């Protein structure tokens, strides 16, 4: 590789990185990303309704059990493990969280009166009454201003049920150890919940990986366009003639791609670092604690720069060829669409590939070089394809890049010294043949 390529790449890189647009974009990017991650989590936690509840226990032995259960415990004091991080932090984000208010009053009747008054005054949301014969009759009462909070009601129902069952089992003469054993299903249930949480968690990080795919798409087009604008400027500034008297047009083209691609990569790198940073810091940041922030798959993070660069080199060299053939950005518009077509096609194929990521169609589509940057990366986010397919797609795309750069360099070589009416496609093909 010629030293000239590095000199040119360095200039391009510095010129891009110094622009206001770059600085602002680089700073706002992570803010935007963080917003994407935090806002849903924050909304989920805001949606998690806090309900104050008083348990009035006429039966006399159930209150603690019910309250524990409402708090998210297991309903049996023995099984409570406060040091367990899963208990320390409520996992049921997005569901009802109960705040237990002790019953006030000497007897049940007084307690009912006080609770009723508190509900009417708006100081209490819910009170439940466990009648004396609750163990026998399996009937309890739920009082609230509205009785349409089905999720809350179900939770209360379950908590009381749990306590009642535990008591009945105890009454059947089974010892507390066995009760604990018999409450194991509750433990199992909690594990299921945590698996559900993980599943949901995967949902958001999957969503994030789709954002990465979008970033490859937008980034390829955006940075490609920047290359094109740069070529047009160089041409209309007439700087290009001095440069090609010092080095070859191919070196100039290649240096440009490396420099601008590097700037794009730096910006994305900072964005992703920001993303990872927010995820990592979420535990220690006070305002974020309690939120479930999604984690990105490290393989995807590592693959991102590769696929971005593949897409960028492929498309930006075509953009550069266009830029060299025209005099103004307006003139370039006519040529841009055909160049963008394959990548737009890739976006159109997105749903097909997402639904059946390992179907033959998806495999074939993702191996087409002009679609690889989007579709192979999409497949990697949905369902990791076999390594050989990934490797093959990278090799094929690299070969395509070599070919496209060769073609683009020939158009570029002729185009940069051409002023006046821009050529049509057949003319460009002639340049490629005779270059």
């Amino acid at each position, binding site marked *: 590789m010629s030293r000239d390529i590095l000199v040119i790449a360095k200039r391009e890189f510095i010129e891009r990185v110094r622009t206001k647009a770059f600085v602002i974009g680089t700073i706002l990017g992570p803010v935007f990303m963080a917003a994407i991650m935090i806002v849903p989590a924050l909304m989920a936690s805001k949606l998690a309704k806090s309900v104050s509840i008083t348990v009035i226990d006429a039966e006399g032995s159930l209150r603690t059990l019910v309250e524990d259960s409402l708090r998210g415990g297991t309903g049996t004091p023995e099984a409570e493990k406060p040091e367990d991080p899963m208990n320390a932090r409520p996992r049921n984000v997005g569901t009802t969280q109960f705040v237990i208010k002790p019953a006030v009053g000497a007897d049940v009747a007084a307690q009912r009166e006080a609770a009723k008054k508190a509900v009417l005054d708006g100081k209490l949301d819910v009170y439940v009454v466990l009648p004396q014969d609750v163990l026998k009759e399996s009937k309890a009462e739920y009082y609230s201003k509205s009785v349409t909070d089905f999720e809350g009601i179900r939770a209360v129902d379950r908590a009381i049920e749990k306590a009642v069952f535990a008591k009945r089992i105890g009454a059947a003469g089974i010892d507390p150890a066995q009760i604990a054993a018999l409450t194991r299903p509750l433990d199992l249930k909690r594990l299921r919940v945590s698996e559900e949480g993980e599943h949901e968690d995967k949902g958001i990080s999957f969503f994030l990986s789709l954002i990465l795919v979008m970033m490859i798409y937008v980034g390829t087009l955006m940075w490609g366009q920047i290359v094109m604008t740069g070529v047009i400027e160089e041409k209309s500034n007439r700087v290009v003639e*001095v440069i090609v008297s010092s080095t070859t047009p191919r070196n100039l083209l290649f240096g440009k791609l490396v420099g601008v691609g590097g700037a794009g990569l730096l910006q994305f790198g900072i964005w992703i670092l920001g993303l990872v940073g927010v995820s990592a810091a979420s535990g220690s940041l006070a305002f974020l604690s309690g939120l479930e922030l999604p984690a990105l798959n490290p393989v995807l993070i590592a693959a991102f720069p590769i696929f971005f660069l593949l897409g960028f080199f492929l498309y930006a060299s075509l953009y550069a060829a266009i830029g060299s053939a025209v005099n103004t950005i307006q003139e370039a518009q006519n040529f841009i669409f055909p160049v963008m077509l394959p990548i737009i096609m890739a976006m159109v194929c997105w749903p097909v590939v997402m639904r059946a990521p390992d179907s033959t169609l998806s495999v074939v589509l993702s191996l087409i070089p002009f679609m690889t940057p989007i579709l192979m990366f999409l497949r990697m986010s949905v369902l990791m394809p076999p390594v050989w397919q990934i490797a093959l797609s990278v090799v094929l795309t690299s070969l395509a890049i070599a070919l496209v750069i060769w073609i683009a360099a020939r158009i570029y070589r002729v185009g940069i010294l051409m002023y006046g009416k821009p050529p049509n496609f057949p003319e460009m093909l002639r340049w490629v043949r005779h270059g």
Partner: protein
Amino acid sequence: MTHALQLKNVRKAYQEKVAVKSLDLEVPKGSVFGLLGPNGAGKTTSIRMAMDIIGPDTGEVLILGQKTDKSLRNRIGYMPEERGLYQKMIIEELLVFMAELKGVKPAESKRRMMPWLERLGLGGLHRKKANELSKGMQQKVQFIQTLLHDPEILILDEPMSGLDPVGTNVMRDAMIELSRAGKTLIVSSHQMATVEQMCDRVVLINNGEKVLDGRVSDIKASYGKNTLVLAFEGDGSFLKGLPGVAAVNDHGRYAELKLGPGADPQAILKAASDRLRITKFEVVEPSLHDIFIERVTEVPA
């Protein structure tokens, strides 16, 4: 002896338009070489072929006796006709960048650029962006850019165009100095008068073909002292009717009279002084401009 630049039978056509037709050209080392001709003659095309920016359809280009390559190009400084700088770049960084492409280390080019900036009246402006400078200043920056890597050969395409009189003088002095320092200068111009005093050798081209080639002194000598320069007060319109006067270039109070074969300058002076107050009278060699006009009209293209 190897030449600084040789074009051997080069030809270049753009679609139907033949810009350069089988041109031969030899630039001796250390000379100041003028490539002259009217607009559209093919000067820029020839120079671009010499710089390997465009490839000739046929023929061969030799720089210092060799086919061009990267290391040879680094020994040339080229100022294209179409000038331009990266508008958003700081002058210092711009010059460093261009010199680095020619293989000069940044520290070295920074050291070298200061005296030149100073000398061309751009002292203290090295941290300015190109678009903060006037057109003329930008042109000077471009000139510095052309010579910062200390090239042996400078190829300047229309170096004087667009410069004000002061700029023209500064540029000419710099060129003379470079020539004295042993550099080879190849200068193109469509205004022959601006470079004719400076050049040792010229090639005159028209419509892509060579019209004249040789040492300036030889070319002029071959035409003899056939031009009469008169400065006068009065109405000189009768001059072109005098016997022996083939053509007149009348500037109002100053006229160049081209003499026909066998004309007597003294007789003309006498006739003129009868009706005008003569302030200057001189018999001189024709200018390249006149020679060119004569050659081109002799052989219609």
